């Protein structure tokens, strides 16, 4: 039973120790009575303060408001909101690796205070100010010497297996996380990984033998209560997982997209002019949030993020997103979040009732969207009619900064080189007509020394 003003989040129901809910647009977490001892230990032992000081855990304040389920409530807390929620299947290799290492750091720190993580899900991590942070305050349970790590299986499925597949098999295999909502089945990971991974002690034990052991005991009622894992053994496992993950590398080279910015048909003058016009548009609309769609390595995203605007910088190419993320980390950027999203098939709502994880579109609308050097990829490479592109963009933003790339442009000609031109409607006039159905065309500028045009549009329906 919840009050009318409270709405429990659809993705927060598995853990009986509490749940997240919205009230009057603010996010709260109810802590239930069974979690009282663990919560008090987390707060009183010093663990909470250490994790907060190290930016490893999302801070919260205790609230005096009425709990939506007062019959089972111990406390209500208000966690600091995450400006934009993202999911592991939208992260590049570096992001998933950093999230995994952060989770292990949290577990190691928790053990120093006699606590242990009771789940190891990738969904317990979010990116905040450019860094991964643990968001589930109720994940900490008191640790007693001899207990194994209950979240070990989940950690291997959510982090180790996908990272190993990305590093040793194919970078695109992280997309399996979109299908398997509780992480990759280890038997699947084991069968997909190359044989050479069996000579690495960590992968042999945590994935291959782990999968074998799971198969051996599947469906059997087994009493493991007499089996103890010493603290030294548990720390050994954490060390081993950490060194395995640190040893995984993936270099974003060898794709046509990684060097895309060096491969544009812009002259220096055209490039400079485009930057100037986009910056002017951003200064005109002063958006609170920007989605840069087809951002590549995020050069234009930074025009927005460097102005202090939260910028979600999306691209479908793993190498481009990796480069974008590594650049953001190297520069210590806090307002940009690179994500891997294929606009022709953006992240759907997944999990129970298709509601546990929210679709990409539902996480909008953005104050402004940028679609620079994108429309020809959607219209020609993906056969999307201009009208459908306009209606999609109208659904996700209030303002739109969009570049029209005409058919005569050499980049479009390159796309048409290997296929029949069935795009008679792909003209600037038709583009403007279709977009006028949803947007007011506020400004447009022809980019110097190019055939392209930049538009600033305002959504008439928002």
């Amino acid at each position, binding site marked *: 039973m919840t009050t009318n003003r409270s709405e429990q989040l659809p993705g927060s129901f598995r853990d009986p120790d509490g749940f997240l809910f919205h009230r009057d647009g603010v996010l709260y977490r109810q802590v239930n009575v069974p979690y009282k001892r663990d919560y008090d230990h987390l707060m009183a032992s010093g663990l909470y303060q250490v994790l907060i000081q190290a930016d490893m855990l999302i801070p919260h304040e205790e609230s005096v408001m009425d709990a939506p389920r007062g019959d089972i409530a111990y406390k209500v807390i208000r966690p600091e909101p995450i400006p934009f929620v993202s999911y592991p299947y939208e992260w590049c290799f570096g992001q998933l690796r950093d999230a995994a290492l952060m989770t292990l750091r949290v577990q190691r720190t928790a053990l120093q205070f006699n606590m242990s993580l009771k789940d190891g899900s990738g969904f317990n991590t979010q990116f905040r100010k450019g860094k991964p942070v643990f968001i589930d305050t109720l994940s900490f349970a008191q640790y007693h010497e001899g207990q*194994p790590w209950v979240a070990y299986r989940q950690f291997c499925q959510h982090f180790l297996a996908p990272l190993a597949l990305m590093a040793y098999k194919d970078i695109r295999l992280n997309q399996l996380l979109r299908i398997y909502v509780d992480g990759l089945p280890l038997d699947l990971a084991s069968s997909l990984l190359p044989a050479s991974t069996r000579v690495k002690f960590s992968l042999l034990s945590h994935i291959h033998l782990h999968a074998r052991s799971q198969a051996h005991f599947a469906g059997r009622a087994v*009493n493991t209560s007499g089996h103890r894992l010493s603290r030294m053994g548990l720390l*050994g496992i954490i060390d081993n997982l950490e060194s395995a993950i640190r040893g995984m590398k993936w270099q974003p080279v060898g794709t046509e997209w990684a060097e895309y910015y060096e491969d544009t048909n812009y002259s220096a003058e055209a490039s400079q002019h485009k930057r100037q016009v986009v910056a002017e548009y951003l200064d005109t609309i002063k958006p609170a949030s920007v989605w840069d769609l087809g951002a590549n390595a995020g050069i234009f995203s930074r025009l927005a993020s460097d102005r202090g605007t939260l910028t979600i910088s999306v691209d479908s190419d793993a190498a481009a997103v990796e480069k974008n993320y590594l650049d953001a980390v190297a520069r210590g950027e806090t307002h940009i979040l690179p994500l891997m999203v294929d606009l022709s098939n953006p992240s759907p709502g997944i999990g129970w009732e298709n509601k546990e994880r929210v679709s990409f579109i539902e996480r909008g609308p953005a104050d402004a969207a940028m679609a620079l050097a994108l429309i020809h990829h959607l219209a020609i490479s993906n056969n999307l009619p201009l009208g459908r592109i306009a209606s999609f963009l109208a659904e996700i933003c209030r303002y739109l900064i969009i570049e029209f790339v005409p058919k005569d442009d050499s980049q479009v000609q390159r796309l048409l080189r290997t296929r029949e031109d069935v795009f008679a409607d792909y003209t600037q006039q038709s583009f403007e007509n279709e977009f006028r159905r949803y947007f007011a065309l506020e400004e447009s500028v022809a980019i110097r020394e190019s055939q392209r045009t930049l538009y600033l549009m305002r959504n008439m329906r928002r």
Partner: protein
Amino acid sequence: MSVSRRLVITIACAIPVLLILPETAYGSVTPSGSGVSAGVGYIDPGAGSIIIQIIVGAIAGGLALAAMYWKRAKAFLANLVAKRRSNDDKP
């Protein structure tokens, strides 16, 4: 660390695991109706995951312990040599 050295260490570590798994580990777990009790938590830790964790933990913990003692032994020897040298230097 060279590739060959890593390979030797991996094989040396893997052999006991492979030997232990079908015999001691799997054999020592007596099937019963009491279910898995691996501590607190709302997720199923998985019996197979607990068993492999205990075995790997024993090895990883043992290696960590061995590394710690090795470090101490090295420090002790280095200290001993340094002392002897300083004694030799004395007139």
